[in-house]
Structure formats: C-alpha cells, structure tokens
C-alpha cells in the first residue's frame, strides 16, 4: 500500500454509494408500488362550493359516483349511492354531508383522524346529523331523529344553561353550543351529554337521565350547529335573522293553569319534579309553596345562587308578568294537601306512614339507603347529610337541632322546612324512622362533647390567621373559602363553602369552633384539636365569619 493513500476511504466511499442506492431503491419502490396514481392516469378532483368557500375532494377516486368502493377500483361497484333526490350528489359533493377529509387520498386520514372526531365520516343513519346544516331546523323527512333531538334539546332545557345561536333567550352558564358541530364528533357529543363529568371532573352539568339513543338524537342536532352553516348567508346570521323554531313543551290534551303551563314552557320541569312530572335533576316543586316564602321564590328566580350559594340552577330569563304568574301559582297551588298521608297511602299501599313520607319527601336527596347519595345529590350545592353509617355524627347532635332542621330547613342549602307539610307527630315519626332504619343508635345515645378551649381575650394577628388558613384549610376549602380547593374534588361530601353567609349567619361561634376542633364525622373534615392553640382556633372562627360576611360587603 502506497504511503499517503488511506484506502479505507475508498471502501467507505463505495459503501456510502451502495447504501444510498439501496435506500433510494427502497424509497422508489415503496412510494410507487402502492400509489393510486399507478393505475390511473389522473385523480378525480371535485371542487364544490356550497357557500362556505370552495372545497376540493378526491373522494370519488375510491367511491366512483359515490358508491361504496369495490376491492378492484376499475370494476364498476355494485353498491351505488342511494337515491337522494331531490338532492344531486354531484352538485353537493361528498364532504358537505359526509364530512371527512376530501383532500386526503388515504383510507385512514380521509375518513377522519381519531381525536375529537370533528371530521369523522358520517354514514348511514348518522348522516342525518348533517341535514340541518343546510335546512332550517324543522320536521324533515330523513332527519326525524335530528328533529327529535332538537325537541329533546329544548325539553331537557339545555338552552337554559348553554347559549345557542337562533334561540334568543338563553343562558351563558355552559359553553356556547352555536358551533359545537365543527368542533366535536358525534360519538364524543353523545358521550359528553350522557356523562359530562367523565372528561371534566369539575363540570357542573347534571347527568340527565337519557338513554344512549336519546343522547344520540341530541348529538345529531348539535352536530349540525357548524361554524359556517349553509342554511343562511353570513349576513343573515350577523343580523340575527336566523331563528330556531319555538316549540310548545306543555303536554297537549290537558287543560293547564297558566302557572303550570309556565312550569313546562320555561323548562322548569326539564330538571325539577312537579307532581307526576319528574326531571330527576333538581328538587321537588310539588309543595314548594308550603316550604318557601313567596319573597324567597321571587328572589330565587332572579338569582338562585344568592339563596343557595353554589346552586347549579341558572337564571331563567322570564318577563315580569310571567314571573308573577309563576310565583302566584307556586305559592297558592303548589302546597301540601291536608290529607298527604292518605294520598300517599293510596299510592304506596300498606307501607307504614313514616316510610311513605320519607320516600316521597326525603329520598330524592338523602337516598332510599339513607347514605345521602340520592338521585339528585350530584346536582345539589351541598351534600345531603348521610344517615347510614354516620352514627358518630348524630351522637354529637342534640335532638332539638335535628327537629329544627326538619321543621325550618337549613338556610343557604336545598333543605326546605317541613313545618307546614308535616304535623309534629309526623316529623317525630320520620325522625324515629331515620334513627331506627339508618343511624342505628338510640335517639338519646349522645356522646359528651370535648371541652372547647376558652376564647382568649387578646386579639389575634390577622396575618398569622391568614397564613394558618392557607396552610390548614385552603387545600380543601379554597384560598377564598368557596369550597373549591385543589383537593375538593377528592372528597364527597365536598368541603363546605365557607362564604355561604345564609348558612353561617345563624350558626353560633361554638359550632364553628367545634367543627374545627373535633372535626365532622362522616365527612373529610378532620379534628384539629392537637394542632391548634386556643388563640388559633378562635382566630380561625373569626376568619370564617369574615369569609361568610364577604358576600354582604360586596
């Protein structure tokens, strides 16, 4: 080997060329071998403009004339596009109705990539999700379920929380649904309607009792709410000329009082129960006139969260006359009949009266098992007290307080007073039942409370108390005491909302101190007796007083 000739370079060089050749060959082979362009000299390229700008599609490459593809692309396919007259598919194109990605020539991508599924291909029965993109919402052959979905949307009162363009009145409580069809796929919509808390654990949307197929119908309607709809010009939309049709929600064939009609029309019964009609989301309104003051009802309709802080009920827009009619009706007609027990007995048969009363009045929140997990519990601002397995809690509570809760209700929560509905004997019967069936201890089986430390005379330093609150309380009760700390969702019963002034105002200082000092059995609230000095304990009580007064100051 001659000096100065690094021959390994030659080998290296030759090898590099060979490898480049091999990889190039492989690249050419794999790119060409299965490529659509091999068999066809050209690719069909439809450009269709339905009003939201031109859309290019290559769908007819695999679906000649809209047919299902045959394995051999050259063969005339046997399953042709169904007759959709008066439509003509060649004028509408494919993706306007079927969605998908028209520009992709790839089986997976063109049918919509997984994820939110906004462009997932629709076919078969699901296709009716597209009809109301072009047609005004209304009865339409072929889109029966989508139309039914719209009716359900109104019947379930969706628009009381969600804004949707075309319905003038309507809440700003939930996310805007005006363009939801452009963002989410059918399956995801259906899933979110059925189980709103699956994705967002802190969602306040109630879980409506809807079967899969009914949720699907609503999803069909929502899927047609797109960003650039074809049913109207942008100018018409801008000018607010597009309206969704109004539908009467009151049952037909029965004469209704004006107030009762409003209960239906204003979508109260989408959630609430009234006599036989039960929305299974919110408390019973059948006897609300005997439970709440007239002024309470009026104020509550204006701003539910002022009376029950944290309530998920939205403000329902209503003109003044309607409100007066409704409140009149509720306070005069929605009252308990004298013969409530007999009425119940007729319906429920031979059950003992106290049990009938519990099932009719308490069960929806406190549950038939007495564990507080009643059917409407997830939608309440405060957890209904659990009876079953909660003996420790009731050992601490004097009978007088328990009876008072039934009689007057608990302010700032959904617990109403039953003074006018139940006679003192009945109240005692219900109490006996609760103790016998769920709590499992005698009513006079009380624990002797630990001695609370004396309230010190000197003042506390507010900064110290604030930092103590941050250290001890804020993880659950939140920095501002609203019960929404970072760990709040891990606990059920949820941490108490400390800004609930209606609840805290009638509470004596000792009860707040007791809760901090000894904890609250049956909840996640631990005892802090060991950790706190007397000064700190009473300082925290003061802090809570200050938090719960905050609302008044605003």
């Amino acid at each position: 080997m001659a000096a100065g000739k690094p021959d390994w370079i030659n080998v290296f060089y030759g090898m590099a060329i060979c490898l480049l050749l091999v990889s190039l060959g492989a690249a050419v082979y794999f790119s060409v071998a299965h490529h659509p362009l091999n068999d066809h000299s050209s690719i069909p390229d439809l450009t269709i403009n339905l009003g939201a700008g031109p859309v290019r599609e290559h769908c007819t490459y695999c679906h000649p004339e809209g047919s299902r593809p045959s394995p051999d692309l050259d063969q005339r396919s046997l399953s042709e596009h169904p007759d959709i007259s008066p439509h003509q598919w060649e004028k509408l194109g494919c993706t306007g109705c079927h969605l998908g990605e028209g520009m992709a020539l790839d089986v997976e991508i063109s049918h919509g990539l997984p994820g939110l599924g906004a462009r997932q291909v629709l076919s078969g029965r699901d296709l009716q999700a597209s009809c109301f993109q072009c047609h005004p919402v209304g009865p339409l052959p072929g889109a029966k379920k989508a139309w039914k979905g719209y009716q359900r949307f109104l019947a379930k009162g969706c628009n009381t929380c969600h804004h949707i363009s075309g319905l003038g009145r309507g809440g700003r409580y939930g996310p805007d649904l005006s363009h939801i069809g452009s963002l989410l796929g059918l399956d995801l919509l259906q899933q979110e309607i059925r189980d709103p808390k699956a994705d967002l654990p802190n969602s306040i949307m109630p879980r409506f009792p809807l079967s899969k197929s009914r949720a699907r119908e609503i999803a069909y309607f929502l899927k047609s709410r797109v960003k650039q709809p074809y049913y109207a010009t942008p100018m018409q939309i801008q000018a607010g000329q597009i309206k969704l049709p109004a539908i009467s929600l009151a049952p037909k064939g029965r004469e209704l009082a004006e107030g009762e009609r409003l209960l239906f029309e204003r979508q109260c019964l989408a959630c609430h129960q009234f006599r036989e009609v039960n929305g299974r989301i919110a408390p019973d309104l059948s006897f609300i006139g005997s439970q709440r003051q007239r002024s309470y009802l009026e104020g509550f309709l204006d701003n539910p969260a002022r009376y029950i802080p944290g309530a998920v009920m939205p403000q329902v827009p209503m003109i003044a006359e309607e409100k007066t009619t409704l409140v009149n009706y509720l306070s005069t007609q929605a009252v308990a009949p004298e013969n409530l027990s007999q009425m119940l007995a007729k319906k429920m048969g031979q059950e003992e009266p106290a049990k009938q009363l519990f099932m009719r009045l308490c069960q929806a929140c406190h549950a038939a098992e007495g564990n507080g997990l009643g059917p409407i519990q997830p939608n309440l601002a405060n957890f209904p007290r659990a009876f079953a397995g909660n003996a420790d809690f009731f050992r601490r509570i004097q009978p007088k307080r328990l009876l008072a809760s039934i009689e007057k209700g608990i302010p700032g929560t959904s617990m109403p007073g039953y003074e006018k509905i139940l006679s003192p004997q009945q109240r005692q019967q219900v109490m006996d039942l609760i103790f016998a069936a769920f709590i499992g201890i005698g009513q006079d089986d009380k624990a002797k409370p630990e001695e609370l430390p004396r309230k010190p005379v000197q003042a506390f330093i507010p900064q110290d108390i604030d930092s103590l609150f941050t250290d001890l309380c804020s993880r659950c009760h939140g920095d501002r005491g609203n019960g929404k700390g970072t760990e709040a969702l891990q606990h059920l019963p949820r941490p108490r909302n400390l800004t609930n002034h209606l609840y805290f105002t009638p509470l004596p200082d000792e009860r707040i101190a007791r809760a901090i000092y000894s904890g609250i059995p049956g909840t996640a609230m631990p005892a802090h007796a060991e950790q706190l000095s007397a000064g700190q304990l009473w300082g925290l009580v003061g802090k809570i007083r200050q938090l719960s007064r905050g609302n008044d100051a605003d």
Partner: protein
Amino acid sequence: MSRTRNFFDHLHVSQVRSRVLHPLTSLGLGIASLTCLATLFVTGFTLFLYYVPDQAQAYERILHISTTLRFGRLIRNLHYLSANGLLILAFLHMSRIFFMGSYKRRYLNWVYGLTLLVLILFANFTGYLLPWDQISYWAIKVGASLAGYFPLLGETLQTFLLGGQDVGPETLARSFALHAGILPFLLLVFTSLHLWRIRKDGGLALPEAADEERIPTIPWLYRSEAAVAMLTLATLIALALLIDAPIFERADPAHPPNPAKAPWYFVGFQELVSYSAVIGGILMPLFWAAFLLLAPRLDRSRSCGGRWFAKDRWHWNLAFALLLISQLVLIYIGLYLRGPNWQLVLPF
C-alpha cells in the same frame, strides 16, 4: 492528474494532515449537518410548490402533499426528519467542538456556529406550525408562552412571532414568511461564513505536530466528505420510509390536547417552568446563552484545541456534559413521563 479548480477548492486547503481524515477527529458531524441543510432546502422548495399558508387550506394542503403526490409523503418525511436531524447533528457538532476545545483562537467561528444553532431552532419552531393541526397549533402556543416568561424581550419576541397575542391566521402567515423566506436566507449566509471561517482558520483545529504525514485533498478529503454526505442521505431516506411526519386532527383553538406540549426541543424548558417559571423561563435560557458565549472567553487552559477531553479542561467539559445531560433528562421527563395536567406518569 490535472483538473480545473472549482468553487469547492476554495473551501479546502490543498493538503490535509492525515489526522484530519481520521473518523474520530470530526465524526463527520459538520458534513452530516450540511447534508441535512441541503436536503431541507431541496425538500423545502418542493413543499413550497404545494403548500398554501392559509388557515382554511394549510391542513388540506398537507394532506394533499402527503397522500396524493407520488413521492409527497417521502418528501415531507424527509423534510421533517432532516429538520430534526439537523438540530440534533448541529448540537452534537457543537458538543464535539466543545469537548475538543476546538473553539480556541476561533471565537468568531464559534459565534457563527451559535448563531446557526439559534437560526436552526427558529426555523424548526416556525415550521412546526405550518401543518396547522392540533398538536402543532398547541405546541406553538405553549412554545410562544415559554418565550413570554422572559422579561421585556420575551413579550416583544412573542408578539413578533405570533403577530399578536395569540396563535391565529397572522401567526401562520408570519411563520411561513420566516420559515420559507428570511430564515433560509440567513442560514445560507451564516453557513457560508461558517465554512469560509474554517478555511481562514486553516482547516480543522488540531494540536501541533511537526512531521505528520500530509495527504492531498483531491481526491481523499473530497471522497470522505462525499461518503459522509451520501451516508447521511441514505440514512435519512431509510428513516423517511420508516417514520412518518406526524399529522393530527385539524387545529381546534377551543380544545387543547391534555397535556399540550411544546416542540420537543423546548420541552426541557417547559418541564422546568412547571417547577418554577423564573428558572425555566429566564434563568436557564440565560445560563445556556451565557455559558456557550462566554466559555471560550473564560477558558484559560493551556492545552491547544483539537484534542478530545484534554486533561486541563476537565472542569469545562464536566460542566458542559452536566448541562447537556440535565437538559436531556428534562426533555425525556417532559416528553415521555408527563400525562394529563402535567402529572407524572411512569411508563411501567
């Protein structure tokens, strides 16, 4: 063998010392980076022919390129891979220079190199958005918000990159203008300067040795360079057949993926920001910049450049290695161990 002199001869000395050609001297990282850059220019021009930087069309155009054109997917994959390859190779190249101490008496070229690294990062970042799909949209959003942590300069940079406060149509137009306009031009300019400086500084930095054998550049240096280039190209093409450039659903500004992650090369900083915004957003980038800019100035070791892991430079090498490893670990954690809400998810 007589031969007309061509342009490339200006970039090479006529004879090189045999150590220059030794594979362990340079590892071929510079030429490999250069090949990636060339591949980027060629594939980039090809994509330029079909891409439209418009919110309504960008995504469909990418689908069109990667599914309808016969070699479209190959070209896009190549562009994607060589972009990331260039970033990695350029970084390795820089590490090589650092560990060899080759920046000595070549501070200007070191700075050119750093400028190139920044340009490459910028080019990569601006190109990331162009497919306008879910992941790219949110990655840019996160990446730009990282820049926002930097006091004073950060928000200006953010406004400049995004064309406003948020990712939108302006951002797309800007990203495209930067990515396909000024950045390639600057890359070209600084690469030329970088190469020219090597020639001016007398080829690769190597320790002095009096009587080392000399080898003619033609054909040996040319051949080895061509071999590295072709090997790089072959690897890129082979990888392009195996790895597809990612494409997800259309961008949806209303629904962030959980977790939304920055482009991988910024995930390390994102991970740091999740502990402390000051460290991840300000101190760490500043420290990197200061370290890389000042190390050659502060390095007072006696040994001349061009020797791997010179003994009297061990503390510099150690510092750099630690910095490198910490960044890699952070990127790994951020990229693979972070689930929804940036919670730690263990892979096993």
